């Protein structure tokens, strides 16, 4: 019941914040409403016991992106408060795109028969993990999940509590002990996410170097002086 109440509070804040972002014309106020909206999305993640995802949402979107946005506005503004005025044509175009997206999302969610879909899911989406994790859960079982004896059920309970850090870390290192154990080694080793992880990190490094190159102060090199130094 409390979960439901909190869900409604935060989902109203998410939607209200998002509408306020669209409705205001002052850029910094938009940033403020964006903080409200994105922070409430993080709160929804916490409600779903996705702690890591919620923390990442706070760190990257609220703490990173919005700060950069405000910082960019402060550095580039010519007047005291930057206003954005939308022309009627832009408004119609934006409303069409937004309405279309809303229709697609709403109809696809509405037309799915969730009852039959959830019946097709495996009964316990249990994920046994690395050996020490299993040990930890076995030790925790004495207290926490008294009554359920199978390691699968314990790990399911741990996942519901948002204790997925170890599994996430192993996944990024290219190990998926959960899937390997679950399928009983019949389908070979399940691949983790090592390659995408490395590609993203190299990509970010390239972006960093490129940004620092672009932002570098362009000094005019004096031929004579450089020759004298060289």
């Amino acid at each position: 019941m409390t979960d439901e109440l909190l869900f409604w509070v935060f989902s109203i804040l998410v939607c209200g914040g998002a509408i306020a972002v669209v409705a205001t014309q002052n850029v910094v106020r938009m940033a403020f409403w964006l903080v409200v909206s994105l922070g409430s999305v993080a709160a929804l993640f916490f409600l779903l016991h996705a702690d890591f995802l919620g923390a990442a949402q706070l760190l990257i979107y609220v703490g990173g992106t919005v700060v950069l946005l405000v910082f960019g506005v402060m550095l580039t503004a010519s007047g005291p408060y930057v206003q954005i005025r939308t022309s009627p044509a832009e408004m119609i175009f934006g409303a069409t795109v937004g309405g279309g997206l809303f229709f697609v999302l709403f109809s696809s969610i509405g037309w799915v028969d969730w009852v039959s879909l959830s019946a097709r899911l495996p009964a316990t989406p249990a994920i046994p993990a690395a050996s020490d994790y299993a040990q930890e859960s076995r030790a925790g079982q004495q207290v926490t999940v008294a009554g359920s004896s199978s390691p699968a059920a314990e790990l399911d309970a741990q996942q519901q509590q948002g204790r997925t850090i170890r599994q996430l870390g192993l996944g990024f290192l290219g190990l998926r002990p959960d899937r390997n154990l679950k399928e009983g080694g019949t389908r070979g080793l399940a691949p983790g996410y090592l390659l995408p992880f490395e590609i993203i990190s190299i990509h970010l490094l390239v972006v960093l170097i490129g940004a620092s190159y672009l932002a570098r102060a362009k000094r005019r090199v004096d031929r004579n002086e450089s020759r004298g130094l060289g």
Partner: protein
Amino acid sequence: MNGLFAAITLQDFLTSLVGGFARSMKIDTETTATIAFFLAALIHASLLLGLFAGLPVFYIWLERKVAGRIQDRLGPTRVGGSFGWLQTIADGIKLIQKEDLVPEDADSLIFRMSPYLATIASFAAFMVLPIADGWVAVSAECGAFLILALMSLEVLGIILAGYSSGSKWALFGAMREAAQMVSYEIPMAICALIPLLIAGSLNFQVIGRMQSGWFWNWFIFHDPFAFLAFFCYFTVATASVKRAPFDLAEAESELVAGFHTEYSGFRWSIFFLAEYSSMFAVSAVAALLFLGGSNVGLFGIDELLGHLRGAGTGALGIEGFSVGTYLANLIGAGVLIAKGCLLVFVQIWVRWTLPRLRIDQVMTTCLKYLVPISCFLFLMAVLWPLVLASTIRRPTFSGQPMGDKSVQHIAVPAVRVASKSEGVAR
């Protein structure tokens, strides 16, 4: 230490307590559970709020007293006896009575909201801070990551406050603050990674238990790089809570008062509250990651406290509640707060004895020195166990290896995380 003894949360405690009344009044279980949930939430929130608001009151008094002594003055002496104990309370009453001014040029909505944004961000960090082994409002597996994320949000309130004031001093202060805090977050996270790497966990309770025993088990003494990392972390943490010598955002000699130039009264005072409680938050994180958390560090005393856990189980007629565990946690909380206060004292001491850096020097210190230093320390901390393993065939110099230790200590779960399957809201 048996895990079973520590395994009662406030919520369970209240469920049993309310359950006793409910049985006599014939209320069904679900209503009881809901009442207990709200009571537990209320008590957690008010305890944290008391800590969050009470510590700054002490620190502001300490700041004035220490500043006075360092400058060969007496500091406050009148209010509340000869030590001026009640000076902060008097200040607070004065500030609340002041008029709530909003400048004409200010963007009034954001001007009014940004102090709350900064304070909420600073307060939220206290939710995941374990005050003792087993006393934590929200026990998250990724606690250390979450607290770094929450502490990084405070900058947003400060930038918005500076921008919306409609004053050039405030805007300059906010821009400096944004540049400073965003760059100092990087070495802070890298330095905090070193003890997390040693522990192999992001859970503060696991980290705290791995440092039990003698004080050479603390992560600061784990290897030479962790020792240096503590000082690096403390410097960066001082800068990230914008204390002197890094208080460029409110440099009085240049910017009047920086981002809070236009604020007065209550809104100004909660900026202060946020600043002083973040000082404690970063110091407590330093104590948890490097200085043994809520362990005393002397084996005999910790052993004694460990034996205390589980004593007097079932007191007050509540299953799972133990008076001994409660006492042990109370002492642990005292130890952690004492360690945090000691570090805050060092921050105050540094403020009144070191001259302020220039803004370019602050940025140079971070980007040219602290980031490379922290990266080097991190790399060396990664290599250290490998080097030890290849030379002396042990991953640590003395004591048992961390890997064995972690399993042994994880086997003592203290706090349950209320989940859908076992929480009261089922």
